[in-house]
């Protein structure tokens, strides 16, 4: 009896895992192909029969990329904007969530309702008027325009609040007795014990900022100000697409976020699923 179950189980295990591994290959091939092709000269990328790996390491695409396009500038812009966005998110969403969780104040219910309501509206309704506002404020083509309108996301406030609810009141109380300022309590008492909450918001912010496209492509207009996504998109036009360089650009743009992801896997996945579970 036992042997039969074990064998059946072994067969099932091998079968299922083989299938899943095959799927993994399918899922991962686009990345491998992109990276590998970035080291091929253009004629080698588009030819039959296809080869996955390059014949030899050709760095011409990367050279072309950084000399013909302000790619390094785009990279800098993206890093800067992402870093600022992430820090700002963590801090301002953190304290707002904390406030809603741990304080009683007039209008708290109404204000929180407003936070929830703003979650419901898709951004499509906002981009046209926001563009006009940016134009009027003369913020077009600046970092401000990318960062400020969407700096504090209601969803993160909601998430932070959920986490902050579990902070014991006694801790706050003893903080106050010790004469700590309210902000001090937040920074020195609450934040350290909510590290995973901050990590989640930070990660989600980071991913959001790094992958953002629609809003930046609307407000960023001059080449030097582009972020990576916008810059790469402009490299692909109806004419003369330098595919080698485009794939090189794409590879470089994806590497930081994949590395970051691999390092912080658990937090990443917890973060994304936390959002789902808390909302469901």
């Amino acid at each position, binding site marked *: 009896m036992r042997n039969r179950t074990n064998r059946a189980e072994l067969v099932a*295990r091998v079968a299922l*895992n083989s299938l*899943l*591994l095959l*799927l*993994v290959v399918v*899922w*991962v*091939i686009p990345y491998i*192909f*992109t990276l590998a092709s970035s080291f091929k000269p253009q004629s080698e990328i*588009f*030819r*039959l029969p*296809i080869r996955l790996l390059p014949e030899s390491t050709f760095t011409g695409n990367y050279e072309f990329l950084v000399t013909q396009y302000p790619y390094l500038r785009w990279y800098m812009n993206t890093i800067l904007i992402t870093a600022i966005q992430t820090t700002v998110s963590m801090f*301002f969403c953190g304290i707002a969530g*904390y*406030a*809603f969780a741990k304080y009683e*104040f007039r209008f708290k219910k109404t204000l929180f309702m*407003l*936070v929830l309501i*703003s979650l419901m*509206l*898709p951004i*499509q*309704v*906002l*981009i*046209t*008027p926001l*563009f*006009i*506002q940016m134009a009027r404020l003369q913020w077009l083509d600046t970092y401000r325009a990318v960062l400020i*309108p969407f700096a*504090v996301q*209601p969803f993160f406030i909601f998430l932070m609040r959920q986490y902050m609810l579990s902070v014991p009141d006694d801790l706050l109380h003893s903080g106050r007795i*010790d004469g700590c*300022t*309210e902000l001090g309590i937040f920074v020195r008492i609450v934040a350290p014990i909510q590290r995973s909450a901050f990590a989640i918001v930070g990660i989600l912010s980071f991913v959001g900022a*790094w*992958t953002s*496209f*629609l809003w930046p492509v609307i407000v960023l207009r001059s080449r030097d100000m582009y972020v990576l*996504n*916008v810059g*790469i998109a402009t490299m*692909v036009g109806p004419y003369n697409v330098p*595919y080698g360089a485009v794939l090189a650009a*794409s590879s470089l*743009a994806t590497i930081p*976020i*994949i590395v970051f*992801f691999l390092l912080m*896997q658990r937090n990443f*996945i917890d973060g*994304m*699923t936390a959002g*789902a*579970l808390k909302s469901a």
Partner: protein
Amino acid sequence: MTTRLPGWLNQKNSAPYLFVAPFFILFLSFWVYPVFYSLYLSIQRATGLGPMQFVGLDNYVRLIGDPRFLKSLANTSVFAFGSVLLQVPIGLALALAFNSTLTHRLRGFYRVAYFLPIITPGVVVGIMFSVIYEFDYGLLNQLVRSVGLDPIPWIRSPDYAMGSILLLGIWIWTGLKALYLLAGLQSIPKDYYESAVIDGASPSQQFLRITLPQLRPILMFVIIQTVIGSYALFDQVWVLTEGGPRDATLTMTMYLYEVGFQQFRLGYSAAIGYSIVFIVLGLTLVLLTAFKGLKDQA
């Protein structure tokens, strides 16, 4: 650090207001104001340079008769519902596979692989797949040819284009759905299953009577999120097909962008924006009621 502030500025009372202030300042300036301004814009003719003119509901009436708008509505809706029908079952299957003891050891590895597309910028995804879907030299057609079939015009033909986008959607989002559903599965108490086994329930009975009902809230979330997210589809399609061929892959958000920021018909694009809002809110309500109905029945 112990500072004493004057009594009237009682920290405990003023702090919460200060803490939520940044959000609300931004909220008022860049959410409340644009929402109303957008409504105002949508009843104007605001084309090109120069003053706007009030036109009442003209823009909305035009939209109803605008073949490109209707096409984008059809495309996006097909994508939304197609995605639900495709990604949720596959995601569920994957989640069940991940949850099983058979895959225990490799689970972490699988999660990473299937999750990669979510953190990849849409533009990069579009570019990767423009090379894969390429007609003459692309990876997919090489595979197709190697099994003896004719090359498929994945993004060249309007008949196949939307299908190719749906396929792309599966690649991008199924992993995420699987992870959500996995989290849901893991939160089902094991004793439910244990008592079911004792009562002699078969695996499929367990699935239908325990798993699915327990997953309902997360399934609802996943389905609604898929539908709502679909109406925002832009990045990948923008780079891959630019809405073509012949508007076969024109999404509502792309049409909004084109009308507003290429044709500079800002009034009309505001009307498109509001139409998207109405449709999305409407669908959400319908889905929520449907789910509630199912819940009450069960």
